[in-house]
């Protein structure tokens, strides 16, 4: 490589980002070098500032600069419903719908022995405490239909059942506006499985 060491280092750091290959990393590094000094400092500050201030909410484990987070402290939220998701970004996706007015619980991952993730690495104990203490009526599991997601749902189900709340899992099937003809077989069979009376 013909990059001078500080530039090579920058490219290397960019390449650690998900979805960024050597070519993109190089482009980003050159872009940074062409930025004016203030913008570069703003960028560097934004990175460390976000890292310093954004933490997991101690209640629901969503990302926030406040603790407890905005959702947990809002009085417009129905605390008798908890929607359980794997990652903080899933909360953001669900919030975009503006349909759900309950509270959330972020597991911070899914059970996956291959990645060294066991139930003890997830915020399961905290979830059980919340369900028990807040008299939660319904726990909605908004977890992906993957092998790891299914295993996590089974695990949660075993632990939540004795607490007496209603446990539901979101439906899987056709995306809205999609064409039956183009849906793949496993999505279609899931959709058939989850059919309901009209």
């Amino acid at each position, binding site marked *: 490589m013909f990059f001078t060491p500080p530039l090579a280092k920058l490219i290397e750091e960019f390449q650690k980002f998900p979805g960024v*290959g*050597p070519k993109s990393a190089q482009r980003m590094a050159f872009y940074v070098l062409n930025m004016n000094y203030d913008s570069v400092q703003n960028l560097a500050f934004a990175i460390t500032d976000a890292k310093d201030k954004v933490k997991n909410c101690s209640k629901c484990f969503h990302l926030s600069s406040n603790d407890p987070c905005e959702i947990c402290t809002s009085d417009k939220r129905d605390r008798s419903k908890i929607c359980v998701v794997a990652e903080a970004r899933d909360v953001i996706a669900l919030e975009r719908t503006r349909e759900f007015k309950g509270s959330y619980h972020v597991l911070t991952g899914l*059970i*996956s*022995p*291959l990645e060294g993730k*066991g*139930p*003890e690495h997830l915020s399961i104990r905290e979830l059980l405490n919340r369900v028990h203490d807040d008299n939660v009526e319904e726990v909605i599991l908004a977890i992906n239909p993957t*092998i*790891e997601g*299914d*295993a996590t749902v*089974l*695990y949660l189900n*075993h*632990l939540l059942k004795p607490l007496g709340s209603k446990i539901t899992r979101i439906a899987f099937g056709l995306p809205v506006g999609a064409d039956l003809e183009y849906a*793949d*077989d*496993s999505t279609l*069979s899931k959709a058939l499985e989850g059919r309901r009376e009209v």
Partner: protein
Amino acid sequence: MRVKKVSLTNFRNYKRSSVDLSDGRNVLIGENAQGKTNFLEAIEIISLGRSTRAQQDGDLIRAGETDMRIELVFESGGAEAIATFALAPTDKPRARGIERQIKVNGLTIGSAKSLRGRLVTVSFKSSDLNLLRGGPKFRRDWIDDILITLRPAYQDILSKYLKSVAQRNRLLKLLFEKGRVSVEDQDQLRVWDEQTARLGATIIKHRLHLLNDLLPRAERHQEHISGKREKLTAEYIFRAKESKDEDEEGPEADSVSASQIVEQPESELAQSLMVLMKQRRYEEIARKQTLCGPHRDDIKFSLNGADAVEFASQGQQRSLVLACKLAELERVQEHLSEPPILLLDDVLAELDLNRQGLLMSLVKNDTQTLITTTHVTGFKPEWVEGAHFLEVFDGNVEPTTEAKSIIAQ
């Protein structure tokens, strides 16, 4: 279904070769090691989304080259399509240096498995003998591949199951290293037991269902080939029920006839798999692997009640494998609205005229057939009459008329 044109670039021993195929019979003639089997393999790769011969993708690239490409123009469901399967170097992590690029009609498709069902092939080759003499994996792959052709969603169940087994195995390994199993670990294990058992039960049901369909057909063919002297039977072997100590329980006690289980509801089957997992818990942890489930199951073939691997002669074994493959051909033909592509790799000359005739009687008239051979003698004349002849020489395929003159003599 028809393959119209095959173009190969740096694939196996082919540098660059492109050839048109005819709708009916195509006979590929060539000495050994010129590329006949490789040519059929290329078609099979587009049909299965993977090679049945290569240990790894890199084996498919011509020595000294870094990338390769297979392009097929074919007709399926009344429409013409172009499918390409290419391998190219990459520095992406986890790709081991080689990346697959699969396209249909110029559109990139996600994974090799979505190639399935567009072009269906049924092949007969000398290595089919592995179906009897090879390890259990050959028999599992055989039945699974037919199932995927008949029901593409099965692929999804199968890969989910294998992933679940991989996760479970890692957990067993972790528990082995920890040296003790806490209550929390028990809870987690139970989850993976349940997940694996449920998917496993679905797979077993599918396999038994298909086996129950294939066996009477295979039995009929074996009867026909042997002049009613040989009765073919087969049993699905649940390796999960095998005892630790081989001497304790004979192999007979482990096998269950397919018809018994096929009546059982899937949930019951999953339940009994979970019970077995629980019984063998400590053995599984000690061996760090899942011992109960269809990923270890097997099929045992017998002739007149005697184990076909141990007691049947070479000739009988060949007939048995042929009978099974004919059953496969029949089943796949019944399922599809148009005939699949038939690939006969070096086997036709090995079959006597009676067997050749049986095969011919089962093949639908308008089936496109590719036959490879080193010589055209010993063929039933119907195979070569009106056939399109191609010569394979040193990684090149070209139409030839010479073979016709050989036959004429």
